[in-house]
């Protein structure tokens, strides 16, 4: 149990020294009371208690385990305070600033701060142990309430934007202190409301028979309707900034859907995926630009199909040489392709046509019947439509002869081939169609920025797209959207995370792999099986004597 404490303590010290705690300290969760940084540290102490308690046999021992783990975590933080007084930490850790120390020691001398941390750690560790032992119906609503308050604080710019209209000013002023954070009474109200809602929801779900108010199909239709309205209203309510973030999320979704065909379905690890995004963008750029590199002055709508086709062909052409390469080697080979494409457009040799590092400029915005899709709020709808079409295509493909063949070669290439699957055509289709999807994203990117530069197509984008697929759930189409919202959208909205983006990425990826390797929204096959297991359990409960037999 003290070992759990040490691990959490090390994490807490690391996050403090990396500067994340201090950065989050600048944001109030409850104005004048608690900051996000304090919530982070408190959450770690709580987590240490909960994890440690969960590893212990039920009983009073759990409480002890929680207290010890919490105290150990606290002691580690106390040690950091003590150390920073006696050693110049700043020469090694630039973020070990006086503000951080002030925050960690609460202005007390190191010895007192140390004791204080152990005490706070013990208490929170005990609470954590309590949370671990408490039944879900108690913890659920509490967690919902706390999560709502935290969300209100972290996304306050967003909430404030929605509350912008003058009529809502009283609500706004009651909920938030201008430029700081939620007011105490606002936070309390949000907590109470959401916790109560969670309780009601629980009660509804727990009703005998579990039949909802509406039949499942109708309920689903209602949810889809609500989702659609929210999707369409979001940029109008949130303004240009939110729309811009969502357009970027949409572009990553398009790329994610494409890479998902290759990696998630066909198991072809492609680290040069940004190349196809770049090819789509450059194709539209060259075909539509009114600047010096423009070759055709086409309209956006005429250029998009060409861009998709060019990306598709590029995907197939780049797929040919790597047909026989598997696994890790494939990742390295495709990594090379990504860089080759970027260096080609950057090169002096192609400068007369592609503009070198200056890029292709003066790409006009698309117009519909004379109406120009100028700002991000307009492009948002273009992105939504494009993503919906591409997701539809991906969904149809996934559940087809070709989709099954892709999954089969992901699982076992040799066996798939022995069952009559032509590896060459199936793989090239995966590369080609995946690239085509990315090409759609590139085309929208070109008109969004109005110009394309080689520097926009870094390796990092390929890695981010891969990361969002993993976080969302390999092979899962809704997972791609969730992944890009979480990994691309959230960091854009949480400005504090800006410089810690990759720290958060790393933590998120490691945590995903350890806790939920199937991703946030796993693919259909896994869900179907869970469903099958549930049905079997229910059948067994209803008629124990008629429990299904295993096979013949």
């Amino acid at each position, binding site marked *: 149990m003290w070992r759990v404490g040490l691990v959490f303590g090390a994490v807490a010290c690391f996050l403090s020294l990396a500067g994340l705690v201090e950065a989050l300290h600048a944001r109030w969760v409850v104005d004048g009371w608690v900051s996000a940084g304090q919530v982070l540290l408190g959450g770690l102490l709580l987590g240490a208690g909960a994890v440690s308690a969960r590893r212990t046999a039920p009983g009073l021992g759990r409480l002890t385990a929680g207290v010890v783990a919490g105290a150990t975590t606290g002691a580690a933080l106390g040690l950091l305070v003590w150390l920073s007084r006696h050693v110049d930490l700043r020469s090694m850790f630039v973020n070990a600033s006086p503000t951080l120390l002030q925050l960690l020691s609460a202005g007390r001398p190191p010895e007192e701060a140390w004791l204080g941390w152990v005490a706070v750690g013990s208490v929170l560790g005990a609470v954590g142990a309590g949370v671990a032992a408490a039944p879900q119906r108690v913890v659920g609503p509490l967690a919902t309430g706390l999560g709502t308050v935290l969300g209100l604080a972290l996304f306050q710019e967003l909430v404030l934007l929605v509350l912008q209209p003058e009529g809502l000013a009283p609500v706004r002023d009651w909920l938030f202190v201008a430029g700081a954070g939620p007011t105490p009474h606002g936070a309390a109200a949000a907590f109470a409301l959401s916790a109560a809602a969670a309780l009601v929801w629980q009660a509804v779900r727990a009703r005998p028979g579990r039949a909802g108010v509406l039949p499942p199909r109708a309920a689903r239709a209602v949810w889809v309707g609500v989702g659609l309205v929210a999707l369409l209203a979001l940029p109008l309510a949130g303004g240009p900034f939110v729309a811009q973030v969502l357009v970027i999320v949409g572009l990553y979704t398009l790329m994610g859907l494409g890479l998902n065909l290759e990696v998630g379905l066909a198991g072809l690890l492609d680290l040069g995926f940004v190349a196809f995004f770049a090819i789509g963008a450059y194709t539209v750029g060259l075909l539509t630009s009114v600047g010096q590199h423009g070759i055709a002055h086409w309209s956006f709508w005429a250029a998009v199909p060409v861009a998709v086709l060019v990306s598709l062909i590029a995907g197939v052409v780049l797929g040919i040489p790597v047909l026989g390469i598997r696994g890790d080697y494939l990742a390295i080979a495709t990594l090379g392709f990504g860089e080759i494409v970027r260096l080609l457009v950057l090169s002096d040799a192609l400068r007369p046509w592609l503009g070198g590092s200056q890029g292709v400029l003066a790409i006009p915005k698309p117009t519909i019947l004379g109406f120009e899709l100028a700002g991000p709020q307009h492009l948002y709808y273009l992105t939504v439509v494009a993503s919906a079409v591409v997701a539809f*295509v991906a969904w*149809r*493909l996934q559940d*087809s*002869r*070709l*989709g*099954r*063949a892709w*999954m*089969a070669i*992901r*699982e*076992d290439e*040799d*066996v*798939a*081939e*022995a*069952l*009559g*699957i*032509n*590896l060459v055509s199936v793989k090239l*289709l995966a590369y080609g*169609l995946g690239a085509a999807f990315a090409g759609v994203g590139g085309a929208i990117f070109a008109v969004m920025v109005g110009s394309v530069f080689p520097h926009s197509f870094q390796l990092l984008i390929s890695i981010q797209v891969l990361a969002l697929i993993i976080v969302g759930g390999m092979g899962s189409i809704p997972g791609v959207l969730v992944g890009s919202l979480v990994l691309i959208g959230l960091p854009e909205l949480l400005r504090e995370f800006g410089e810690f983006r990759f720290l958060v990425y790393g933590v998120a990826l490691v945590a995903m792999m350890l806790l939920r390797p199937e991703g946030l929204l796993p693919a259909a*096959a*896994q869900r*179907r*099986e869970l*469903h*099958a297991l549930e049905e079997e359990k229910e059948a067994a409960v209803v008629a124990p004597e008629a429990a*299904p*037999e*295993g*096979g*013949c």
Partner: protein
Amino acid sequence: MPILATRRMTKRFGGLVAIRALDLEVEERSIHSVIGPNGAGKTTLFNCVTGFYRPDEGEIWFAGQRIDGLRPDEIAHLGVARTYQNIRLFANMTVLENVLVGLHRHLRSTWVGAVLRSPAVRREERWAHGEARRLLEFVGLGGRLNFLARNLPYGEQRKLELARALATRPKLLLLDEPTAGMNPAETQEMIQFIRRLRDELGITILLIEHHMRVVMTISDRVTVLDYGEKISEGTPQQVQADPRVIEAYLGTRKVAAEALG
């Protein structure tokens, strides 16, 4: 005319000769077993017939066509299917999907058709799902359609692998130790099942098997390999009586005599 024939087929791995100048003939609608000590070249033979390995010398003929040098998927299209010694399922796909992959070669839909989901594609998919369910019923997995293959118990994994192989509608089915790890009752069931494959579906079976009881019960012919060479061939009775076979299994006559006596 034999449905499968190898002519002086040799396969080497570096300096090791895995199969040496093998002449093998498998009659249509027969159950033909290949036995031999570990490392005798049995699985290598399977890998050559299914196109995973290309023989260094000699020829392989299947149903009147030369198949050495063809790709595994081309050979599969001619009607050869197999199972594996260590079961190789598509572990993260459902039972139904595993069999649907087996049906791949009987489906025609292209990716454009799949996106548009034309009536022809829909009809084909309906047919494929029905066919897959029928096959799974046939092997006794009718109640497991939506399970992930990796979560099936061992015995059912074997059955699923068989169903997947049968989905390709093979003329020749190569079974690599189908009764490995089975208890006597399950083994008996498998023997019946293999017989049904031949009698009801008219499939020729080429079998690698270590259980001598199984081999002697169901085989029409037995080929014995040792160090990549055919040392004996004939009916189960003939092979059992062949001194060379006893020697290969138990060592030299002297050692055999010591071991027995």
